[in-house]
């Protein structure tokens, strides 16, 4: 399988990448593990690829202004190995280790995953549950998009055409925060048939991000409301699981029917809530 022809350039800085994007029908290339398969099938035929994988300012994890800042071009393998992130929110490393396989994790990036917005990708659920902001930069400068506003539909996001994701900013969790990511993986691709990320703060606030179920990742707000400030006991968990997906219309495909997906979502939401109870 051979992609159609395109031009290729390597960007050394974010501003160079933004400029290249605005000059042509270019597409950004990070890890390439979603884009290159699409090029091979010729589902995507950009005239130019701008390689952002070596831009230093997009790499690595650090703390700044009370936020954990993950550079957009940080790979999954780097996320899993980061001691600081593991000390703050260990479930993010564990959740990342469920993505694809070792080779994919060595090259795929968090920014690529969010920009691609595959309805079965894992990180969308994790940015929702951690109340992250997606930091983006375009010709007009920087802005922050709340994770809850970022995913707008099937493979679509709130990113403007010439914008690039620069970082994922997660509020440093108050001490005693617990989180988990529970996933039923599609057995062949290991994408999420259903993935549930759940976080509970010491103040009793619960946030739940769901992926795989519908055409975009979302917060399970009905369940969050039932649980906030309450004990995560059997009664409350039952009520939350019952309410969570009452109005959701799950996807249906050759891997799982809508009815089965909804059933999985309930089972995995319960698992997640028991984990953080």
């Amino acid at each position, binding site marked *: 399988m051979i992609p159609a022809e395109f031009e290729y350039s390597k960007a050394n800085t974010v501003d160079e990448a933004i400029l290249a994007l605005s000059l042509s029908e270019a597409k950004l*290339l990070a890890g390439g593990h979603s884009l*290159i398969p699409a*090029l091979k099938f010729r589902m995507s035929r950009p005239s130019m690829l701008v390689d952002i994988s070596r831009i230093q300012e997009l790499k690595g994890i650090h703390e700044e202004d009370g936020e954990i800042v993950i550079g957009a071009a940080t790979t999954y393998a780097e996320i899993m190995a980061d001691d600081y992130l593991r000390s703050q929110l260990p479930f993010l490393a564990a959740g990342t280790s469920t993505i694809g396989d070792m080779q994919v994790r060595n090259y795929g990036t968090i920014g690529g995953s969010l920009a691609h917005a595959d309805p079965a990708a894992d990180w969308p659920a994790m940015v929702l549950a951690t109340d992250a902001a997606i930091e983006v930069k375009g010709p007009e400068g920087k802005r922050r998009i709340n994770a809850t506003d970022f995913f707008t539909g099937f493979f679509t996001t709130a990113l403007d055409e010439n914008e690039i994701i620069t970082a994922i900013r997660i509020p440093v969790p108050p001490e005693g925060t617990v989180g988990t990511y529970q996933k039923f993986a599609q057995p062949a691709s290991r994408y999420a048939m259903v993935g549930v990320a759940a976080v509970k703060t010491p103040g009793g606030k619960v946030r739940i991000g769901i992926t795989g179920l519908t055409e975009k990742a979302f917060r399970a707000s009905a369940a969050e409301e039932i649980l906030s400030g309450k004990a995560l006991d059997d009664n409350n968990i039952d009520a939350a699981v019952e309410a969570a997906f009452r109005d959701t219309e799950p996807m249906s495909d050759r891997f799982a029917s809508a009815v089965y997906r909804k059933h999985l979502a309930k089972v995995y939401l319960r698992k997640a809530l028991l984990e953080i109870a």
Partner: protein
Amino acid sequence: MNITINVKVNGVKYSNTVEPRLLLVHYLRDVLRLTGTHIGCDTSNCGACTIHLNGMATKSCTLLAVQADGMEITTIEGLAKDDQLHPLQEAFRECHGLQCGFCTPGMIMTAADLLQHNPNPNEEEIRTALEGNLCRCTGYHNIVKAVEFAATKMKKEVAV
């Protein structure tokens, strides 16, 4: 516009001018004639094309040759030292870790990455590490045994 890339493959430096759309696996097989790296699928699932890029296992069918510019690549051809097979190669032979052998180069390159990071993996860790490599012949059991065998052998070599 074609692009000139400089790479080091199995310790040898190469400089080639390639089309941006050339996949790394095609560069290795068709330009350098290193045909030990296989192509088993179109969907990035089978792992037969696994190589090391700067020491890390990656699927060379899902990378462009231009992305490897400036990097070091190891393919299955680069594992043996002179006449001495790599412990993993020896282990696959010893434990019958292959039948047709099509998946073997990829299996070995992935297992080599695992053993670099975790010289003492248990069975579950081996199976998890090999999730991105498919074998249609062996049923995997002997592959897992081979990786365990190689790990033991490599520890002994370090101890000596």
